[in-house]
């Protein structure tokens, strides 16, 4: 097959540079044909080759006492005791979701679930991390409505609960929304399976959906190009998710593993058969022959290159010993899943594509998978602010604390997420101990343990990352995201075991984006080390830029931890009238970069306050221990909106008011800073006065008041502010709900 003459050389149209193309010619010893070029263009795309991020990712700590599978596998995994493993990973589906939010988000969930069951784990939870422009934009509301519906459609239908997530609205995401999905799965240690092909002579079986023209060019074109005017042309490649097919695929895959019929297993994600097969071969140090004419097709007339790059969803690839093939096919038939032997493992070290018996592509696996050039970034701190401040939306006077609180509670980043998470099944599988809004992290029951009869162990999981804080200070903002995740876990009593992340950034070839990325990864690595939490895997999504500029740098962090007794999992709501309330931890409230500063229309600060890793870690441990031992009756970390918002949230969740006092505050401005300032390390806990005094012996702590009544009463030197709970509830409940009425 020869390449057509064209004005733009095909390799450039496929996203390869001239130098990369020359290197491919050198590796092959000849010019690539169309099949080979399309495969190289995918494998050497940013999405598959991580050419701008791989060197940086090397800084992340990937060792830890609980680690079972680290980066490099379809999902990472940690040990949660009793021979059980939790596998998890987060992945982005930003560009497909910007083009077609329902299907983009749905297939994002489908893809991350496949990564989890590809390592042999049964998916037990999904979380979603979403970023949109402000909800007053029609496009943002449309994207939100449909992305949420798509996530629900997939997760609900396949029977995996969506137990948590986060949503931020910022103008910087108006052109490029972010849709990141995280999934967790559970498995016995010895059931975890790797993706490496093994055993020359073994058979390669493709099972699941038929292959169509979905997403052809998606990985290299959609995932690496800045969205602009020409979008319409990229559209016909939309992938459609079929959760019903995936449910059968999932049950089928797990049964194949239960019966020990597989040598290795791999999902098909971005770059379809090309990346899944070549990565299997590369990990096993072997070769593969693929007869692409045996691949079951949805459309009859597909060409070999289309078959090799198609991103049709709901497909898996496995390696099987020849005498087990019939059994594998029988299990697949039971689950109404098409299975076809499409190739063999060889010891050639080459990936060969055959059609009608003729070789139509023949490439060294090493060149495809591991020899894409890696680029060093050229970071330079921007000299001028990258992001214009959002226009002022605060109606209250700057120092009018009484009027600010309801406005903050109704603001898009703080208002109740109920209208969104109510669209997700959070209870299927009967594990959910803490649902959304009950605690800072979702808590999921583990199967009854052998070692601790009576107590039921659980895991806690949270996902976080405030792009605005990272934009203000990529290094400390990213550290804050890691600490916040750990704080969320601590409030349920969980100790972190591992972390996954998705790095959503702009174009890394631009020095200021390179700087954001470099600083962010440095901050993540340092926070992980400070907490002793290994990175088990992740994902990178670059080139999130539109004509109006880049997104906020958005590292999204997902963390999994364990707690010994589900019955003692912490809650964020105040539980009992008369309990004392304490603010604990090394918390230094400051307004620059806060939600209030955003509402006031203030510019981002150049840098965030320093963090004291030791003090933070001490506070995390103390809060976690107090929750585990049942010494506090509620725990909630201070995040967006600072102390006052956390207080209101604990009141509303528990259905109790509070009386607090802030004395010795000289000015209204200082009061506003204390109430609404943000920073890491603060927790609001409630319990008996003695218990809180005891907690205060190990870390900074102030008893600020007590639980009770139907208002929040704040006494300060200038007087008393009284907020009726029902007023605050209306503000918080209505904030988002009113903005996102049904969009057809």
């Amino acid at each position, binding site marked *: 097959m020869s390449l057509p003459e064209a004005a733009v050389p095909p390799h450039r149209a496929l996203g390869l540079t001239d130098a990369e193309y020359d290197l491919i010619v050198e590796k092959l010893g000849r010019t690539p044909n169309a099949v080979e070029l399309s495969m190289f263009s995918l494998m050497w795309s940013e999405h598959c080759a991580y050419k701008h991020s791989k060197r940086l990712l090397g800084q992340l700590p990937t060792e830890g006492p609980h680690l079972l599978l680290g980066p490099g596998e379809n999902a990472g995994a940690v040990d949660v005791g009793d021979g059980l493993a939790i596998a998890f990973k987060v992945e982005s589906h930003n560009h497909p979701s910007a*083009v077609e939010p329902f299907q983009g988000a749905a297939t994002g969930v489908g893809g991350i679930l496949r990564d989890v069951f590809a390592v042999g784990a049964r998916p037990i939870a999904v979380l979603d991390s979403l970023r949109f422009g402000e909800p007053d934009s029609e496009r943002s509301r449309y994207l939100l409505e449909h992305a949420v519906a798509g996530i629900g459609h997939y997760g609900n239908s396949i029977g995996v609960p969506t137990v948590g997530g986060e949503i931020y609205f910022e103008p910087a995401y108006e052109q490029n929304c972010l849709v990141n999905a995280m999934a967790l799965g559970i498995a016995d240690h010895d059931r975890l399976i790797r993706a490496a092909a093994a055993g020359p002579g073994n058979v390669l079986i493709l099972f699941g*959906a038929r292959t*169509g023209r979905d997403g052809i060019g998606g990985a290299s074109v959609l995932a690496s190009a800045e969205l602009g005017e020409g979008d319409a042309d990229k559209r*016909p490649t*939309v992938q*459609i998710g*079929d959760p019903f097919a995936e449910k059968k695929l999932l049950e089928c895959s797990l049964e194949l593993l239960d019966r020990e019929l597989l040598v290795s297993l791999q999902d098909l994600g971005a770059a379809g058969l090309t990346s899944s097969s070549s990565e299997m071969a590369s990990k096993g140090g072997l070769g593969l022959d693929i007869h692409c004419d045996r691949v079951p097709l949805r*459309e009859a007339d597909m060409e070999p290159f289309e078959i090799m790059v198609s991103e049709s969803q709901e497909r898996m690839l496995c390696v099987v010993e020849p005498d087990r093939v019939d059994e594998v096919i029988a299990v697949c038939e039971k689950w109404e899943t098409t299975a076809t032997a499409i190739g063999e493992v060889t010891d050639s070290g080459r990936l060969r594509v055959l059609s009608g018996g003729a070789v139509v592509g023949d490439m060294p696996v090493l060149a495809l998978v591991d020899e894409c050039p890696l680029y060093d970034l050229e970071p330079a701190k921007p000299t001028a602010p990258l992001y214009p401040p959002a226009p002022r939306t605060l109606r209250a006077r700057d120092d009018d604390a009484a009027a600010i609180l309801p406005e903050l509670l109704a603001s898009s980043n703080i208002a109740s997420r109920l209208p969104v998470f109510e669209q997700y099944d959070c209870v299927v599988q009967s594990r959910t101990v803490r649902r959304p809004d009950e605690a800072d992290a979702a808590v999921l029951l583990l199967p009854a343990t052998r070692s601790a009869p009576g107590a039921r162990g659980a895991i806690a999981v949270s996902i976080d990352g405030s792009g605005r804080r990272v934009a203000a200070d990529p290094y400390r903002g990213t550290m804050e995201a890691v600490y916040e995740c750990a704080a969320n876990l601590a409030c349920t009593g969980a100790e972190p075991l591992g972390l996954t992340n998705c790095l959503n950034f702009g174009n890394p070839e631009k020095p200021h984006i390179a700087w954001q990325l470099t600083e962010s990864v440095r901050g993540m690595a340092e926070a992980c080390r400070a907490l002793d939490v290994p990175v088990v895997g992740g994902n990178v999504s670059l080139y999130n830029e539109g004509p109006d500029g880049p997104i906020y740098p958005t590292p999204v962090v997902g963390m999994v931890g364990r707690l010994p007794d589900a019955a003692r999992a912490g809650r964020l709501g105040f539980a009992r009238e008369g309990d004392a309330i304490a603010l604990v931890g090394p918390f230094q409230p400051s307004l620059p970069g806060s939600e209030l500063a955003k509402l006031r229309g203030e510019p981002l600060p150049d840098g965030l306050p320093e963090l004291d890793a030791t003090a933070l870690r001490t506070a995390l441990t103390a809060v976690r221990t107090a929750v585990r031992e049942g010494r506090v009756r509620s725990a909630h970390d201070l995040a967006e909106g600072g102390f006052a918002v956390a207080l209101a949230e604990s009141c509303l969740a528990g259905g109790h008011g509070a009386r607090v006092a802030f004395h010795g505050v000289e000015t209204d401005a200082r009061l506003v800073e204390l109430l609404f300032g943000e920073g890491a390390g603060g927790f609001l806990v409630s319990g008996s006065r003695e218990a809180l005094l005891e907690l205060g012996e190990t870390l900074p702590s102030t008893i600020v008041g007590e639980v009770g009544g139907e208002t929040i009463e704040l006494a300060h030197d200038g007087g008393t502010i009284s907020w009726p709970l029902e007023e605050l509830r209306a503000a918080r409940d209505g904030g988002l709900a009113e903005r996102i009425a049904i969009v057809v």
Partner: protein
Amino acid sequence: MMTRVRVLVRPKAGILDPQGQAVERALPALGFAGVANVHVGRLIELDVDDPAQLPEMCRKLLVNPLIEDYEIVDADVAPAR
């Protein structure tokens, strides 16, 4: 005078149609042989003052042009079997 029209919306050719597949699989099991190419789409019926607006309505709201094709049919003329 309003005109009653139908908009027939179907998955684009080549786009995965899980609903159509599910129906196609179910029919033989019920004893209906000789059925092929099943596709499931949407039927929108509406009265309009100005039928000339319909294509724009479809593009803007009724149809997702990325994944769906449509056809506008006069309700009154469509022959019943």
